[in-house]
């Protein structure tokens, strides 16, 4: 395994709200190596986006990192001053946001928005930056790039805007690209185009990609390693192959059982996860998934289970893990 590019340990994020402290991220650890694609899957409110915002120091004003380290090139991102972080943001770590409709500035031309990181980080002048901007747009597959530099975001479709976002993110050839739900707002045929584009660009440049999504299908096709997040914690981490064939955490199993699969039989029985996600207003004192869990044991109600290695490279946070063959058995049983 290669030396990690980014090592996050015990990251904790809290938000102060009028209803009290929100325990958004509760001690997560992961690392990511150059050229690797790491997936973080979870539902809304699980803290997956907050994690990426915390790393870049762009949390909302009421958010605080209350613990942990994030080592990136010998520096701890969480302890850097704003001026120092500014040199890293957009240059070494770049981000693609979910919504291409709102993450571009509607009153600036695409050209201006593409030139900005180049001028700020590389000190290019306008004509140099323009030339580079054209190259970037061509790389992300936008035809007649030169003319389109003068266009405004509203003149682009959703898929095209996301291509522009990717071009901006890759402008300074970052070492790490964080993509937060990059295709959620797009149609499936456009989603396929964008995912393919991300795959190609990342492998050509040996960029590390941190892919945050709620879509298990996207993760299965893109990632080598996956972290399943719930209530601000990783419940299960491992290779995509292991997680999707032998999920050991009840939540991972629950997710797989609750999505209809395109390749499964019709009216395949869906097993929803009962209840709704945990209220994050109190610190976790038990397994956060216990109230919704079919595998809950007494211990789960008394303390938070530790994240333990169950086989090499596969970790589970559960006192009573799902049998290894449960998912396969159930799928085959369901097909009969």
């Amino acid at each position, binding site marked *: 395994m290669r030396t990690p590019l980014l090592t996050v340990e015990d990251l904790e994020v809290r938000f102060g709200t009028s209803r009290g402290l929100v325990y958004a991220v509760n001690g997560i650890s992961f690392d990511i190596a150059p050229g690797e694609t790491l997936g973080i899957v979870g539902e809304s409110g699980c803290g997956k986006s907050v994690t990426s915002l915390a790393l870049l120091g762009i949390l909302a004003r009421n958010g605080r990192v209350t613990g942990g380290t994030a080592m990136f090139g010998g520096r701890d991102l969480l302890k850097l001053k704003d001026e120092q972080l500014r040199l890293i943001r957009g240059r070494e770590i770049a981000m693609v946001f979910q919504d291409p409709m709102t993450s571009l500035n509607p009153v600036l031309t695409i050209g201006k928005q593409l030139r900005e990181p180049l001028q700020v980080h590389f000190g290019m002048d306008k004509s140099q930056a323009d030339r580079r901007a054209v190259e970037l747009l061509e790389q992300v597959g936008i035809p007649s790039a030169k003319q389109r530099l003068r266009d405004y975001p509203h003149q682009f479709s959703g898929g095209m805007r996301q291509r522009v976002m990717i071009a901006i993110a890759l402008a300074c050839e970052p070492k790490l690209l964080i993509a937060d*739900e990059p295709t959620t707002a797009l149609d499936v045929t456009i989603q396929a185009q964008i995912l393919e584009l991300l795959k190609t660009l990342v492998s050509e440049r040996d960029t590390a990609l941190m892919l945050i999504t709620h879509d298990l299908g996207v993760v299965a096709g893109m990632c080598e390693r996956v972290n399943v997040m719930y209530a601000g914690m990783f419940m299960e981490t491992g290779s995509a*192959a292991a997680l999707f064939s032998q999920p050991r955490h009840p939540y991972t199993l629950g997710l797989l059982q609750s999505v209809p699969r395109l390749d499964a039989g019709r009216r395949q029985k869906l097993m929803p996860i009962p209840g709704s996600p945990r209220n994050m207003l109190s610190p976790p004192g038990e397994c956060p998934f216990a109230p919704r869990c079919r595998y809950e044991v007494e211990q789960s109600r008394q303390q938070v289970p530790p994240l333990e290695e169950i086989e090499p490279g596969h970790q589970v946070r559960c006192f009573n893990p799902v049998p290894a063959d449960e998912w396969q058995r159930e799928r085959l049983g369901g097909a009969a």
Partner: protein
Amino acid sequence: MSTNGNALVEVEDLKVYFPIKSGLVMDRHVGDVKAVDGVSLEIERGETLGLVGESGCGKSTVGRALLRLYDPTAGKIVFDGTDITHLGENQMRPLRRRMQMIFQDPYASLNPRHSIGRIVGEPLRVHGRGGKELGKTVRELLQTVGLPADAISRYPHEFSGGQRQRIGLARALALNPDFLVCDEPVSALDVSIQAQIVNLMERLQDDFDLTYLFIAHDLAVVRHISDRIAVMYLGQIMELSPADDLYDNPLHPYTISLLSAIPIPDPEVEKRRSSILLQGDLPSPANPPAACRFHTRCPYVQPTRCREEEPLLRPLEGHLVKCHYAEDVKAGLITPRVREAVFEPGPQEPAYVPPVD
């Protein structure tokens, strides 16, 4: 596809155009967005017809036109034997209680200032069924959709997305309808909650003999719930077939590409699948391509006929297919190739984005 005279809803050559106006004073009519352009379909009693397509393909417009929320530009809509295409508002009202709608966005479709009791009871009051029994009926409805009885005096903000969608279902069921148009009912929900609502909708269909038009862009969900599926592209139906068959044996090049673009949550399967990548964006429905609408993006396009002659929606292997070369594509006589991308500003209907944490 024969429906042996058991159709609840019949649509014939439905067209819904939205005029594009220009000029400050004159309001000149300069063109039309052809949101729905010649759609014919039948929905049988008790079945679920899935309607899928990408944003801007006109699927929601079809659903709304069926309920006469939009006035059709041309064509005919028959509901349970009555031609409702040109019925006035007064004549429509008694029929409206038999057709209801479920909306995509559970945050926008419930009035935040009204209690749940008022929201669910409203259709009853409107149709003169208020009276003393109202409270009891509402409580029964809430129970039917799996909400606690004390929900009646609470307000929408106190409920999660999944619970709000249950409230929307209770409201739709209040008048004991026959036909429900469900417009993306689960796409705003988290995956673990989606399954709860899908299962609930299946149970309600059995319990109340409901007929669904299920509109969605997520083909996996549509396949799960539908009996038959119609695939739309730029205002027209490209393929219509029994649900399982559409997946096992897709005949239209658009269906084939659409299916191959959907990721499957299984890395093993993902590695084995070969995907056909469609290039470019959806063309504008204000200026759709001539002849076959899909020819600008079709990986199987042939030199002349596809650009010059509009294919008919014709029966083939138990499907209806709108493609000249469906047999040849099926037999492997035509191989897909990568097309040069054609980009145009897409339609202005962004897919709903669930709130992020």
